[in-house]
């Protein structure tokens, strides 16, 4: 006996990777999420490769890309907005050409990695949060600006194994222009909002950590927040059965924000001495987790954030961000990316490749890092995959060398 399931797609438009997108929803363009709507509305057909802004055959474009790479002394693989298969291909290309490799989200990824590599952390994943979290503290973020359906998919769910979902306590601590509406419970209970501007989070989170660690705090306010409020918050976290402290690296974009993240994760470490709590890093995608992870298992080190000015050619991959282009200045640019790329000035070479989850299949990591989901072609096209194009460029380079 087999169980028939409607074919469902996983949406790669953000790190949540909701895998409940039906073919029917795609056909009718009906989504509960604007990001998904935008992603599945992309038109990826009818675009040919270009060399210097002029239409070219795939073979001509591949030759031009190989020639540009051969001439470069210090190429850079960047953008890297792709899936695991694309990441593998790019790592190979970088090894092959001696290129450095980075990602469009390198700065937010590396902010988290600094904390991981300095102190480690204690974190959880979405299904644990869905079934256990009774207190969710969102620090400097509303999450939904990045992961639209976070509350729908993880928080205000019908059922959970170990907690009453509708009774969860949602607390926002700091952040700029947050959308706290999704934090309202299904029965209309408003979330608690402890307001402070993002730039003051370093001090506020440091005090919260001190309070959780039972350190003496003499101040009565910090950055306009009453210490008594933070004391109550610390007590709430300690009393929780499974407190979840959520941050989004991209929302903590001031200098040395990694120290704030470390204070968040060390607050979790302190809580776990006696009760249970976990951190949850949200946001993410353009395949950032996939690329960093694959880079790590293939090279033994995490991705890098190189200085653009020291490179003399860029391979730019923008499969999930067609509007994104590298900073002006570094030339030539070889785009292996979104067919619907938007160029202000034509790159040296443009080869449209299939976007995993839209034009072709693939595999992508979810933002919580433990789950990888297959991506299926929602609207299959015969565009070549990034893996195929990289293989062609490598063959060309090898042929040139021979």
């Amino acid at each position, binding site marked *: 006996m087999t169980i028939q*399931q409607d074919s469902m797609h996983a949406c790669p438009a953000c790190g949540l990777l909701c895998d409940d997108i039906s073919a029917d929803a795609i056909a009718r363009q009906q989504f509960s999420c604007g990001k998904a709507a935008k992603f599945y509305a992309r038109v990826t057909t009818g675009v040919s490769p270009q060399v210097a802004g002029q239409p070219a055959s795939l073979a001509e474009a591949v030759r031009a890309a190989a020639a540009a790479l051969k001439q470069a002394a210090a190429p850079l693989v960047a953008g890297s907005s792709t899936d695991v298969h694309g990441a593998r291909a790019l790592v190979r290309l970088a090894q092959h050409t001696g290129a450095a490799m980075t990602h469009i989200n390198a700065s937010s990824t590396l902010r988290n990695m600094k904390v991981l590599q300095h102190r480690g952390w204690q*974190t959880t*994943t979405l299904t644990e949060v869905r079934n256990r979290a009774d207190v969710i503290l969102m620090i400097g973020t509303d999450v939904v600006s990045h992961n639209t359906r976070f509350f729908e998919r993880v928080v205000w769910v019908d059922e959970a194994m170990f907690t009453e979902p509708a009774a969860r306590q949602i607390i926002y601590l700091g952040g700029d222009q947050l959308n706290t509406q999704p934090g309202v419970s299904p029965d209309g209970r408003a979330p608690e909002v402890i307001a402070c501007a993002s730039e003051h989070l370093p001090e506020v989170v440091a005090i919260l950590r001190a309070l959780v660690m039972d350190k003496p705090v003499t101040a009565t306010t910090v950055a306009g927040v009453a210490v008594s409020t933070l004391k109550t918050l610390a007590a709430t976290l300690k009393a929780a059965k499974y407190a979840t402290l959520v941050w989004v690296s991209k929302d903590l974009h001031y200098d040395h924000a990694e120290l704030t993240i470390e204070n968040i994760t060390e607050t979790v470490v302190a809580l776990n001495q006696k009760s249970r709590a976990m951190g949850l890093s949200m946001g993410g995608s353009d395949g950032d987790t996939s690329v960093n992870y694959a880079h*790590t298992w*293939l090279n033994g080190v995490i991705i890098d954030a190189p200085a653009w000015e020291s490179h003399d050619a860029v391979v730019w991959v923008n499969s999930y961000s067609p509007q994104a282009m590298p900073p002006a200045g570094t030339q030539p640019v070889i785009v292996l990316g979104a067919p619907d790329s938007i160029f202000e000035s034509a790159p040296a070479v443009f080869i449209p490749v299939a976007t995993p989850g839209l034009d072709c299949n693939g595999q992508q990591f979810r933002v919580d890092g433990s789950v990888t989901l*297959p991506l299926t072609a929602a609207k299959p096209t015969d565009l070549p995959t990034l893996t195929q194009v990289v293989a062609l460029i490598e063959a060309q380079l090898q042929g040139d060398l021979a």
Partner: protein
Amino acid sequence: MITLLKNAKVIDPANHKDGVVQDIYIRDGRIIAKPADSEKIGQVHDLNGKIVMAGAIDMHSHIGGGKVNIARMLLPEYQAMRRLEEPEAHICGANCSHHATPNTTDTGMRYIEMGYTAAFEPAVLAVNARQAHMEMGDTPMIDKGGYAMLGNDDYFLRLLSQNADQKTINDYVAWTLHATQTIGIKVVNPGGISAFKFNERRQDLDQQHSHYHITPRRILQALSRAVNEIGIAKPLHVHCNNLGVAGNFQTTLDTMGASDGLPMHLTHIQFHSYGTEGDKKFSSAAANIAEAINSNKHITADVGQILFGQTVTASGDNMMQHLNAKVANPKKSVIMDIECDAGCGVVPFKYRDQNYVNALQWAIGLEVFLSVDDPWRVFLTTDHPNGAPFTSYPHLIRLLMDKTFRNDAFDKLNLDAQAMSNLKSLDREYSLYEIATMTRSAPAKLIGLQDRGHLGVGAAADITVYTEQADKEAMFAKPDLVFKDGELVVKEGKVVKVVWGATHTAKPTFDLGVEKDIKQYFDRYHTMQMNNFKISNDQIAEDGRNHVINHVQG
């Protein structure tokens, strides 16, 4: 084309051969009987009496998956930046985290260079299996496989607490093997990983789980029975409760009785052989453990030997790793709860020979090796990277084969640890035949790889050729030749051809009706669809290099 290995001195315990000089013929990746004289021989290697064994099989090595990759990330202070344009420029030393947790390419290369042709990832989190297979798929040269972790997943614990019948449990276990493309089942700190999520800090064998009100003993009974009844070869792989705790040997002894005589494999048993004697309340209980293994014929064990140096430990046991994090070196660690399925704990350690506990751990591992009589039931592992990186196997083999070498090393240990170990009274030196047993024949038999780990007609031609030397570390570090599926891939310790190996699985038949309830569970509680949890053969083969070899067992 036929390849001939002439005058091979064959050590092949599965076929009871101990130094028989003979010729080996290979065709299409398999060992064949002597062909008719009329058949053409394509390639001849005259071995002149060199030692020939089957390719070695590492039955427990953390080579792929989430926690291993976190371990790779964790020690940038030891990672002199690799210059990618010069891949060989970075040579890993004992203080380098690459050394302990190499990237996937290095993993495959270092294994094959030592004559290992397969390694099994023993802690595949079911929900993370896709990642584990991606990493193993990117590991060249060797065959791979995994054991899926069960016993802390809420689906199973719900079944057990609702008194589900054994058939349902069997079907779920078989379903998991299919879904995760694995060949065995492991349980890590039975019930403990789950209990940690409910704020418990220890889980004893007969202590009820605070939420599900079942004991680890019950979990072991149900899982060992399931594994037995669905008919896979690999016995339940057990990482006992109370990892690393002084006095835990009693838990280990009690665990041996938990399966009612059904086969069980106790893994990295060194970490579970600790007593509480002496001033420091930490002592060796290796003698008790070895005696129990000797008398309990249903039990097998691998050692998880520690060797001195920097490593990063990666375990599914987040409960105990959360405690161990206090002694992390450098001081950092990653602890995770994962998907109502499992957890993980990644903690760097520096094992030092002048540290009392570390020195005694070293001795305890060797005491276990030397006191278990039957090399078919004790396996050579360092629990890579937890006790030491797999690259230290040649050194470990020498410690087992060379009493003088071992005693010289012992004399350098922390003096208090020396006083607490009987290692020097153990005169045993392993023979080549015994080493071949514990690294070839026995792991193949244990996992159920009928055509691996031996050199009989019909076996896969995974073959390692060594020059016999007095220095066994030198001998095992650098075989003369290694053949993978009949192809010559290593010459004089260097890879001469890149191959990709396969993924071994076991997929016993089961009643697919079980999926109806599993799907309901996913729909009610999970954040992914059940269908996306399942990994297909095509997804394993994905980039065209890997393929699944399924073993029909039982």
